[in-house]
């Protein structure tokens, strides 16, 4: 196991991109700009391999059940199945390949149900409002909504939740 004491996420409850990079959980930048790809923000050795069982392209690898998930970036199509099944709601898909906007696919388990076309508040890992976005796709699996939001360019690595104001 890596020396985790230098990481701050256990004290803060959110993780910095630098920490994710150091743990090998962020795709290389060449892959990020190519198109949608999964990011599993799963920095601890939880005994869990659900993402592997459901990944349709067998892109996720793990030797022991407690290992951190490793993605073979070129096998990952960014389909979002891991977003749908991850029990920790720690899987996201980002698409930084478009010139005018970024796209983030995230799990959502609150009401009201998100709908395509909704304008939503974008939240970062710290719960701060970082902008407004538009829901471009929603599907559901076992009560988890898998929501793709269009965000202002540059926010793809920041936005990790949405908030829908009740009318």
């Amino acid at each position, binding site marked *: 196991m890596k020396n985790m004491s230098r990481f701050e996420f256990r*004290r803060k409850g959110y993780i910095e991109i630098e920490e994710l990079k150091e743990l090998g959980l962020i795709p290389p930048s060449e892959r990020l700009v190519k198109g949608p790809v999964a990011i599993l923000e799963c920095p601890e050795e939880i*005994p869990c391999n*659900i993402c592997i069982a459901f990944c349709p392209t067998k892109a996720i690898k793990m030797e022991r059940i407690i290992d951190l998930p490793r993605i073979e970036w070129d096998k990952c199509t960014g389909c979002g199945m891991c977003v749908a099944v991850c029990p920790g709601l720690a899987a996201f898909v980002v698409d930084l390949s478009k010139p005018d906007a970024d796209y983030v696919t995230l799990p959502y388990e609150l009401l009201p149900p998100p709908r395509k076309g909704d304008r939503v508040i974008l939240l970062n890992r710290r719960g701060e409002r970082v902008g407004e976005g538009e829901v471009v796709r929603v599907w559901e699996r076992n*009560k988890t909504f898998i929501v793709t939001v269009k965000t202002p360019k540059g926010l793809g690595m920041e936005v990790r939740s949405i908030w829908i104001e009740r009318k």
Partner: protein
Amino acid sequence: MTSPIDRRIYEHPIITFHRGRKIKFVFEGREVEAYEGESVAVALYAIGIDVFSWSRKLNRPRGPFCMIGKCSSCFMIVNNIPNTRTCILPVQEGLVVERQKGLATPPSKPLEEEVEEVELNPDVLIVGGGPSGLEAASILASNGLEVVVVDEHFKPGGQLLKQTHKFFGNVELFGGQRGFQIAELYIKKLAEYSNIKLLTQTSVYGVFRGGIVAAAGRNKHYIIKPRAVIAATGAQERLIEFPNNDLPGVMGAGGAQTIMNEFGVKPGEKALVVGSGNVGLIVAYQLVQAGVEVKAIVEIMKEIGGWFVHAAKVRRLGIPILTSHTIKYVEGNGRVEKAVVVEVDDKFNPISGTEREFNVDLVLLAVGLEPDTRFHAQAGAVMKYVPELGGLVPIRTRDLETTVSNLYVAGDSSGVEEATTAILEGRIAAYSIISKFTSGSRAQQALEEMEKTLKFLWEEYRSSPLLSRARRGKESVTVSREELLELRSKYPPPVSFG
């Protein structure tokens, strides 16, 4: 009379609450409405009754706390019977319910209902219908053994019933399914076996000479003589000390989960959660799902106690986790209206001047669980105090037999962990019993399955650094067969089974 207050949840992102037909019962002289399937305590809470009883000496109001039949804050007089645990009593048409002020007087007239005496001689008695007990029951039954499962609640499933999050682990261990869905799967599975007798709303109240276990059910008194017992009795929530910690609105995190997730009733409007272990983090997220505003989670340690992924879920919704903070006191008139938290120094002493006030009506204590080992202790099992496991637990072999012959322990009562390890422990105990009570290839296969499960549990699952504390605890109470026999002869238990 229809109450102007209705705390029931009609829209929830995860759970569809299936309410039964409307029924009426009498509460302190007035007729109140409830839905079939609700407990008396929840039905009253749903219509705005915050106070369930008044304390014996100081007449202080008490509200819901554990909601699973472990504490005593919901004791009421029901149909003339005092000290009735209303949290595990289903509502029924025509019940007459009154709250207790201090100690109750004995019933003024004898019971009208007749009690039937029932004798049972199963191969295995399972005390507790949670994940551990239900897993064990289904394996024992599928191997042809006669099984009796006893649970105090009127619904089996234990604490699975109130879990809305998806379980970790692997697919074979229900990973990816939500807790309440796992309970449904077990209930469906158990119904397939005619050799399982499930006694709900029944309390095991004692072990007697000759290995007899007695249990009290609705109008039934059971005298059970099993060949083996798996006591999978779970755990109860801890309380911490602070002024007014008994004020209604201060409840166990699990108590609130029962109210909102099992019965679909909002436990409050604005909440503070004390403790950031997995229970605290998960309950905060579930509160948001139920439409409750969570002001903060406070944690006395410098680090968050639970898994990062659970913390990340609440942080990205903007809920602060205040580490190095604790609760100082709560205030309110008949119900919590305000909670004050304070920062602590390296020695956990409050730093004056750092107090912060939160206007909340709900303070949830997620400060740990304590194994419920009353059954094991009464049977004479040699116990050990293990802080890592939450308290006193029976010493056992790796296949979970205690120093009482053929008395097994599994799940949280063997030391607090979580539901997946509870399932694995139930499985291990079941296969151990099958290997003893059957012969030939069936016994051989059971041994193989047991070894496979033990290997997975100890060498893979519990090798996670996140589980190292519990693992250390479990190692410290697991002894070899020889050591067990030595303890058994040194401290001979008053009973044995088999």
